[in-house]
């Protein structure tokens, strides 16, 4: 494996395991996951539905808590932090793109992009947000609400929001899952372009082979385990 070649991993998961209790039986979603992702890498996590892809992504982002195991983000043991500590770390380190876009319906496109910066207390954020919306080709629609935008446009807003904080790591969960194939291709192109421009590390969950093949590395999940 190439893992031991990574000198400065931005993400490191050690023996990550996740069980959930379902009525009287215990289900194992993830079992003993070990992985490292280096700076600037583009890694795809692939696998069938229910293989544990999204759960792994949630754990890597500190959105969920593992049954056992550790995750280091930028060298920091995220599960030793408090819930708020993890949130703060996410705010300055991570960007997210989701399958269902997850824009706030009450905010316009530009306001959605401004939100992460506003949360960190940075002022004069409008200019930065405008610039990014221009970069994703939505300068004409900045004052539209999510419901007035098409799926592809909503995902562009989401990408702009993800990059606006200059994250070191971008996590994407099936970013094209809700889009038709040509729109999906454009979105993936955009993500990879920005990834290169901004030297962001990318971890992408998908079951689309063509997207996965554009990544520098693929991690195959099956029944909660990494397949070699």
């Amino acid at each position: 494996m190439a893992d031991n070649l990574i000198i400065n991993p931005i993400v490191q998961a050690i023996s990550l395991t996740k069980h959930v209790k379902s009525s009287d039986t215990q289900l194992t979603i993830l079992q003993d996951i070990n992985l490292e992702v280096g700076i600037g890498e583009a890694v795809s996590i692939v696998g069938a539905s229910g293989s544990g892809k999204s759960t792994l992504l949630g754990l890597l982002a500190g959105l969920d808590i593992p049954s056992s195991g550790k995750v280091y983000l930028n060298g920091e043991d995220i599960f030793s932090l408090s819930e708020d500590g993890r949130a703060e770390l996410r705010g300055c380190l991570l960007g997210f793109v989701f399958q269902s876009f997850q824009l706030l319906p009450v905010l316009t496109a530009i306001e959605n992009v401004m939100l992460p910066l506003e949360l960190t207390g940075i002022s004069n954020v409008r200019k930065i947000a405008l610039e990014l919306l221009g970069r994703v080709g939505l300068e004409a629609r900045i004052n539209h609400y999510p419901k007035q935008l098409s799926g592809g446009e909503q995902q562009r807003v989401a990408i702009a929001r993800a990059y606006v904080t200059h994250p070191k790591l971008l996590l994407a969960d099936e970013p094209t899952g809700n889009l038709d194939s040509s729109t999906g291709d454009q979105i993936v192109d955009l993500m990879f372009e920005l990834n290169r421009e901004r030297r962001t590390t990318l971890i992408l969950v998908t079951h689309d082979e063509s997207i996965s093949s554009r990544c520098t590395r693929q991690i195959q999940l099956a029944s909660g385990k990494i397949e070699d």
Partner: protein
Amino acid sequence: MNSFKLSLRMLHRDLRAGELHVLIFALIISVGGMTTVGFFTDRVQLALSRQGNQLLGADLVIVSDRPLSQRYTGEAVKLGLNTSSSLKFPSMVVKGDDNILVGIKAVTAGYPLRGELRITDEIGKAASYRNDYVASGIPSSGSVWVGEKLAARLALKKGDIIEVGEARLIVASQITLEPDYSIGFINLGPRLLINAIDLPATGLIQQGSRISYRLLISGNAGLITTLRSWLQPNLTSGERIQGIRDARPEIKSALERAEKFLSLAAMASVVLAAAAIALAARRFTMRHLDGCAIMRCLGARQNEVLYLYLYHFIILGLVASIMGCLLGLLAQEALVYWLSAMITVELPWPSLFPFIQGVLVGLVLLLGFALPPLLNLRSVPALRVLRRDIGISNVYSLTGYALGLGALAVLFLWKADDVRLGLSVMIGFIVAIAIFGLLGFLLIKAISSVRSKAGGTWKYGLASIWRRANSSVIQAVALGLGLMALLTLMLIRGDLLQNWHTTLPSDSPNHFLVNIQENQLQPLQEFFKQNDVLQPSVYPMVRGRITSINGSIVVPDNYSNTRAKRLLKREFNLSWANEIRSDNQIVDGEWWQSRDKGKAVLSLEKGVAKAIGVKLGDTLTFDIAGSIFSAEVSSIRKVDWDSFRVNFFAVTPPGVLEEYPTSYITSFYLPENQMDMMNKLIMAFPNFLVIDVATIITQVQKVIEQVTKAIEFVFLFTLLSGLIVLYAAVISTQDERIHEAAIFRTLGAKRSQLISTWIVEFSILGILSGLFSSMGASALGYVIGKFTLNLPYTFNIWIWLIGLFVGVIGVVVAGMIGTRSALTSPPILVLRRIG
């Protein structure tokens, strides 16, 4: 930390997106309703007491048997108050060979200070009220104004000369309405009003004359209070203060009931506001779970998320409460304008207090009932961005509302200004919430268990109720509480008004005949028969003075209680009866049996017993025309003095008092168009003392009428608040319903199928809330009626029918209106929006 700035921006965005409309609307209307009640009751209470003061002729009266110290007038004038004085005494008035005992009142300029004195120039005509007018002053020196009875008895005409003591005075007008016309033997019977300037000329004011001196004072309510507190320690023995509350028991009880009812109405709107806010805040929270999860995902700390919305709500609460107060100010102004035809006195501008109270109440309500669901936003897991099904933590926890309920309890006690009333309502609501919640859950569970046996529409309707069991229970409880407040108010209002009108029906006795002799009973009966007047009951009356209690001699001046002093100095009216009267109620001891005839026991009125400190088993000794009579107190009675019927302080069984000098007394109703009969009666039985209370009854009925109107208006506001609760309840599950509808329609459900599913669901909610409200209102009505408003309770089937009807129709109609957009918007749009 600029989360405040961010919060402001978010608030602006939420406002723009219409997320807060329900909450703002609920808050504005409820605070508006509340402050309207606040402003309005303040001013109406003032108006009512002023209206009452018209019956007193002033805001405050000092009464004494001796001339009043000039210091009192001096102090009142120093405070900037208006004063006027009057003297009342009985004396003979002579015209030619005819003479009669008259109640004379001598007044100074300015009289009356409150209310109006009406006169007519058509002297001698019975009930010539149609051509009367407001007197522009008092009789000029040398002239007199006569009462109707005096005019009739002496056959007076305008310009006649009458002799009052040594003075000869000219009859100028006849009095038709006198503000301070009161029941009391000295005042009643034939009356005469003279100018105080003429008093010395009559030579009637001498040592030992029976004169009642009065100082009338009016002006600003605050200054009156100041004067009252200055007066209290300065009054000497024999001097007492009369305000409206001291003077007129019938007005006093009307006022007190009105005040209690208005504060109940205010409390009902507080409860309604709480329910609406809890529902609206819950919806707000549900709709912001996703947003909070995203913010948590984007790096917001837990407290940051909480503060963001906390500031949101505080700002919102302040702004909406202030808007509500402004609405209240406008509404009460409109109301006062509308009532101005009835309230003849000028109302002062309301104080700032209801305004501050409104803002405070708004904030307390908002935070008390919005905070519990809001706190959930703090703990929304960020993972919700990946898995939407997680993270709907328990938004419903009842324990979370403990804060709100506590705040409500404090508000209740504050607003009710009556600990017992406030507590009984408060405990009623808490018990109701617990019982409704439990019952609702059990009923929903029971209904849902039969759903597999039900047909299509019913199956899905029942499934919806069960799936949303928690929301359904919350909705039913909130609606039930809202309806309960309305029904309770309706029940009490109905009973209250009914009770008032029955205490003073339009044929209440308006004349008393006193001093009827035994040999006149038969002729009187015949007189009534000839004149087509219903033969009234006649009661025997024996007059006696209490000389000792339990064998110890009574010295009136040893009593500190002024009422006791007065009661013990004068003669009591004793009577006998076999049966207890319907407007009397035994509160201690027992009424006698027929075998107790001749037994020396007596039943004493509660107020008198308390004043002179007599209890069951004590022995009272009376001096009756020089003879001694002793009896043991065998029962204490409560007497309804509001009824204007003949009543006695002390009653014995038959066969005890008959040997003492006895006269008889009766009361009857004489219609205004039969007033001529009065003149004939006076001619036929010159020894009768006629007491005319028609004027007082008319005035009391007028006060009751105005209070009724005020109550109906306040009730409308509570009704409006009830509609907001209904709206908030229906809209609280609107999102889920729209989402479900989209799925149903995508799967091919027809509009009619969806509509009937919802009708089933809303009907069940309606039945539950109707049931809860009727149960609660009946119980609460019983408690409040019995313990605080002193009204008898009767089971009212209408409460159950109205509760169920309004519950079902209200919820179904409002529900269908609230959900109609789910039928019209294309399913794909809805599904895409939900994501």
